[in-house]
């Protein structure tokens, strides 16, 4: 019994999934097939995920039966022949909905990512694991074709649809030959040359994998993940100071050398050789160069210490903005053509704090607390558009970058060093008690990033964590990790506040348990008024903490 061919196209709103559906329908009509396609437009088209559903049926069969086929309005789990997705998470969604089954479904997807808002807005990293989707996709489909079609499309200045169409042609699951596909693109009449080229590239890329020995399974073209197995060797130094620094790095455990190397590189660029030596001094001071030092602790400490020491003050920002490499990167990112004039307009909003931070520490502090100075600086501390590649704009940044020379005496530098030291001291104390805890303290360096309010908030969380450590409220590595994650969970600090309160209450409750023992000891004695008052206070605090710890968060 003949049944229709059932095709699902999963796309994101505005990606033109409808165009692909139309191509398939047009091709089918020309090749003697009846088709029916449906879609659900509406709000899903505003950046949401949406699907198109198409069925094809041979016209000659319908004619000989004298009836038209009844085609479905919905794809049904277990009843789909071809699933075409413009993005890998959408492929995952189709698998989740049951539209991809190993007995019959050909799954074609681009493997690039279009991040969801939850991934983008995370304060740290909220990115999902697309490799997990890929592995499920291979297992669940009859045939799988997946590669980064966005990249291929970009090469030819075309769109993903064309790549998907090319891959579909290669699978041969539709009874139409390559010419039929290409003619469809030609008759569409839009960007024909580019689209045909893209189609061909995708067709070939898909074919290359189909001839691979894993029979029907077509592998991804993404480069395999590196890093994990790559070994690192310290490069040779080019200067006297460089060689001396590298020799010091060589004394650290091998596993941590790469991170430390990256660190000194950054700091030499940021300031000078001496500053990089200071970095190594600090690591050594923590005993991290010892042969038995915990490599993970060394790596994490080196990572965040170097990043923190290279904090982005005005001279650093200026230094980055004017570098040759950045100019090249800028042109590439905006896809400027050769010789095309491009203006670079920076959006800066320095605050009074940043200007004072540039000053020698005592003066800076004075200015920060002086209403008169604040008024004067207020004239400069406002939103600014700076044209980096105009001559005066460049000179301004250039001079600002030169202030690096005076950095060590600056207020901002001194303040950051105090913060760094506070963190390192806590790290040292944790090292003494518990290696796991020390690692987690090191990782708290991740909280300090960004600028102005964002940075202050992160720093504030860091200090509250250090205080919690100091107060004995946090004693385990897992509790500290949870608290740090809470600090990254929301901008408003509510999650962090909750987590912190809970830990403090638990701490109190534990203390109250001790108090309960004390209480029973007291009650066996003759009780003075003071004792009673003391007992009352203790039991009250116990009941409160019990109440709080039972609450649902």
């Amino acid at each position: 019994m003949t049944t229709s061919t059932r095709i699902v196209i999963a796309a994101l709103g505005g990606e033109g999934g409808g165009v692909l559906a139309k191509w398939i329908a047009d091709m089918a009509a020309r090749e003697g097939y009846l088709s029916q396609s449906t879609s659900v437009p509406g709000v899903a088209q505003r950046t949401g995920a949406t699907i198109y559903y198409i069925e094809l049926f041979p016209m000659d069969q319908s004619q000989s039966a004298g009836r038209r086929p009844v085609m479905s309005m919905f794809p049904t789990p277990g009843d789909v022949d071809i699933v075409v997705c413009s993005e890998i998470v959408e492929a995952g969604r189709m698998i989740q909905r049951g539209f991809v089954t190993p007995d019959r479904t050909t799954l074609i997807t681009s493997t690039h990512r279009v991040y969801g808002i939850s991934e983008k807005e995370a304060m740290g990293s909220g990115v999902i694991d697309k490799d997990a989707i890929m592995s499920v996709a291979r297992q669940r489909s009859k045939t799988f074709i997946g590669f980064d079609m966005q990249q291929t499309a970009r090469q030819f200045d075309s769109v993903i649809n064309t790549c998907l169409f090319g891959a579909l042609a290669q699978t041969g699951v539709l009874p139409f030959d390559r010419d039929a596909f290409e003619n469809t693109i030609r008759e569409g009449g839009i960007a024909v040359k580019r689209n045909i080229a893209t189609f061909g590239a995708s067709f070939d890329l898909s074919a290359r994998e189909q001839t691979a020995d894993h029979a029907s399974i077509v592998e991804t073209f993404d480069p395999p993940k590196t890093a994990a197995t790559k070994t690192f060797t310290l490069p040779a130094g080019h200067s006297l100071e460089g060689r001396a620094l590298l020799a010091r790095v060589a004394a650290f455990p091998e596993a941590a050398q790469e991170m430390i190397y990256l660190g000194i590189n950054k700091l030499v660029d940021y300031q000078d050789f001496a500053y990089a030596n200071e970095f190594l001094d600090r690591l050594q001071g923590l005993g991290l160069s010892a042969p038995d030092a915990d490599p993970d602790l060394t790596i994490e400490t080196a990572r965040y210490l170097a990043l923190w020491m290279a904090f982005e003050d005005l001279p650093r920002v200026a230094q980055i903005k004017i570098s040759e490499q950045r100019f090249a990167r800028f042109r590439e990112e905006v896809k400027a053509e050769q010789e095309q004039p491009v203006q670079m307009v920076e959006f800066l909003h320095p605050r009074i704090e940043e200007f004072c931070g540039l000053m020698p520490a005592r003066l800076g502090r004075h200015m920060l607390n002086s209403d008169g100075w604040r008024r004067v600086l207020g004239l400069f501390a406002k939103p600014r558009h700076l044209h980096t590649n105009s001559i005066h704009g460049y000179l301004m940044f250039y001079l600002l970058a030169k202030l690096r020379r005076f950095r060590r005496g600056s207020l901002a530098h001194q303040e950051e060093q105090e913060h760094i030291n506070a963190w390192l001291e806590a790290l040292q104390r944790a090292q003494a008690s518990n290696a796991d805890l020390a690692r987690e303290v090191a990782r708290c360096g991740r909280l300090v990033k960004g600028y102005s309010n964002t940075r202050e908030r992160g720093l504030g969380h860091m200090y509250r964590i250090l205080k919690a450590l100091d107060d004995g409220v946090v004693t385990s590595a897992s509790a500290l990790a949870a608290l740090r994650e809470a600090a990254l969970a929301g901008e408003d600090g509510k999650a962090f506040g909750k987590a912190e309160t809970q830990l403090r209450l638990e701490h109190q409750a534990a203390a109250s348990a001790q108090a309960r023992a004390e209480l029973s000891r007291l009650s066996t004695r003759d009780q003075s008024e003071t004792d009673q008052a003391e007992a009352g206070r203790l039991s009250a605090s116990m009941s409160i903490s019990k109440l709080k710890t039972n609450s649902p968060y």
Partner: protein
Amino acid sequence: MAERSFKKEVQHLKLGDGAVFKGEGILAITKGLLQSGVSYVGGYQGSPISHLMDVLADAQDILSELGVHFEQNGSEATAASMLSASIHYPLRGAVAWKSTVGTNVASDALANLASSGVIGGAMVVVGEDYGEGSSIMQERTHAFAMKSQMWLLDPRPDLPHIVDMIEHGFALSEASNTPLFLMVRIRTCHVTGEFVAKDNVAPQYNATNAVEPDRQLDRIILPPLIFEQERDKVARRLPLAIDYITEHGLNEVFEGESDDVGLILQGGLYNTVIRALERLGLSDAYGNSRIPLYVMNVTYPLIPEELTQFCVGKRHVLMIEEGQPNYIEQELSLILRKGDVQAQLHGKDILPGFGEFTGKVAFEGIAEFLTVSRPKAVDIDDLASRRQTALLASLPKELAQVLQPQIVARPAGLCTGCPERPLFSAVKQVQETHETDFHISADIGCHSFATLAPFNLGSTIMGYGFSLASSSAIRAKIPHRAISVMGDGGFWHNGLSTGVSSAVFNNHDGVLIIVDNGYSAATGGQDIPSFVKPENLIASTRIEREDNQPIEAAVRGVGVEWVRTVYTYDIARMKSTLEEALSTDYDGLKVIIAEGECMLNKQRRVKPQLAKRINDGMRTVRERFVVDSETCTGDHACIRLSGCPSLTIKENPDPMRVDPVAYVDNSCVGCGVCGGNAHSAVLCPSFARAELVYNPSGWDRFITSLRESVIGFLQGRLSRQREARTL
């Protein structure tokens, strides 16, 4: 200028007798109306009926050639009221809207129309926005049809059949003097297909051949006439309708060999049911089913005689009815009881009591029914094994667990460059300076997406244009002045009268933000009364269209004294205006008109112009934004104030950093919100605007080369210094 143009497709509407019409459901419906000799058409946009309105708007030439009057109505109530033209005169009319929301808005006029009755056929085409992709609460139009007694057509989703039912619909309406609904489900509106066309029929009456003014007193909604109208509905119109439906066989019976059972279904579900039967091995691809079917292309009223006849002699019947409550099943049960038909009736006991009737639901429900009822000539073992196979389609638990956390939700959001984004960036920034979160009364429109991440602004949505009205009680109970957000579409649809004039009357000491983007944007960019020449839609250079009805004039006209118009992309000004509105001593209604052209529409307009300029060799500057990945530290504060699709993330190029950096992809339209936020929220120094100059002038080339030589010299110096510092 709507989002989608049907200028090309509407030419198919001219097709005459015997030509094959190919296209979407929406176009087929329009063609059906013209073939029925419709005299006037109207409606209000909204998915899934938006495209019908766009088709009608694009077909104005064809309509006027035929003498068909078209209005793009201000609301569904306006459209329903338009049908009163059919009360006294033999004029066929059709209006369209999204249901059930549109039906709710129209209900007053509809109820009165239904009571009066009609002479000319009156049809309401409702696009039922139910199930997947729906943007409204889940309810049925069926309830309205029953309570006001309007017939409800729910044809099989097959274009020839739909067109046929439109023609019958008008005849049925006239035969029973009753207005009716033609219900099309969301997927039917967009289904493609073909049918053999007939000639369009020009309406008998038009501007040159006018009707003779006439009135029949008994059709006016006044006592005591209304009591007679109720009697007429039940005693005369209903039987007439049943006669017409029976006589013309509007409902269909498909016989099958397993005639000891039967399926009764709404017409719209026919294809889904056939597919389930096909997968169960009980139908072929053409719908030749072994199980008998009774297909209700008219779901109200029911035809007792047909139903009892179908059920007599059957042991079990299944009522396949989508949505709740199960009105049809209830009435069917009564019909069978009264007719003393012994077939056991199944319905919502086997099928789910709520939700869309998807392929999966149909398959499982029908399989269960057949398993329970064991029809003759059905191989139960085969049925069981097919059910078993279908179960295998679901993902094994261990894979589902791997997959589940990776499937990120994709809530709808504002488009790239949307003018509403900077508005909500400003509101969020102002909220941060206040002690508490804001309670905001939100509305229907693109701006309702602000209730979702990353803005999370908005607490209630009560309907189209109702935001201001819905803050009228809560305003006295919240710690800040009440804030309501309304779109220009909602404002003209309902908000002016329901919200603004009522608020002025009640001394509403709150803030109303009206989003003025020049179009009814969420429904597809249809024109609205405050339409202006888009290129002039900037507060400072506003030159209005002659017949434009500005929002500011409208609110002042109903007594608002405090009005500010702010260009949304000026975030700093938006913030200060909002702060002022929240803190001023003035205690009346404060209206902020947040103006900025819908970016979808703007891009459609500007892109070809830009390409042409560049092509013609004219000096052109294109702007877009860039994030400096070296100064970006990956905390994503910018994204939490934006949510722009083009502002995304990528792997951090610095191997020391673990968090991804922000990144502006190539879809950026250079609206400037990133930069505006970086400034107004004091975010970071990572945002830069690139101004790409196409066809540079001589001066451009001169200044560029001068700059390059100076900067190149300095960069060379820096590189050498850097070299000296390498390891």
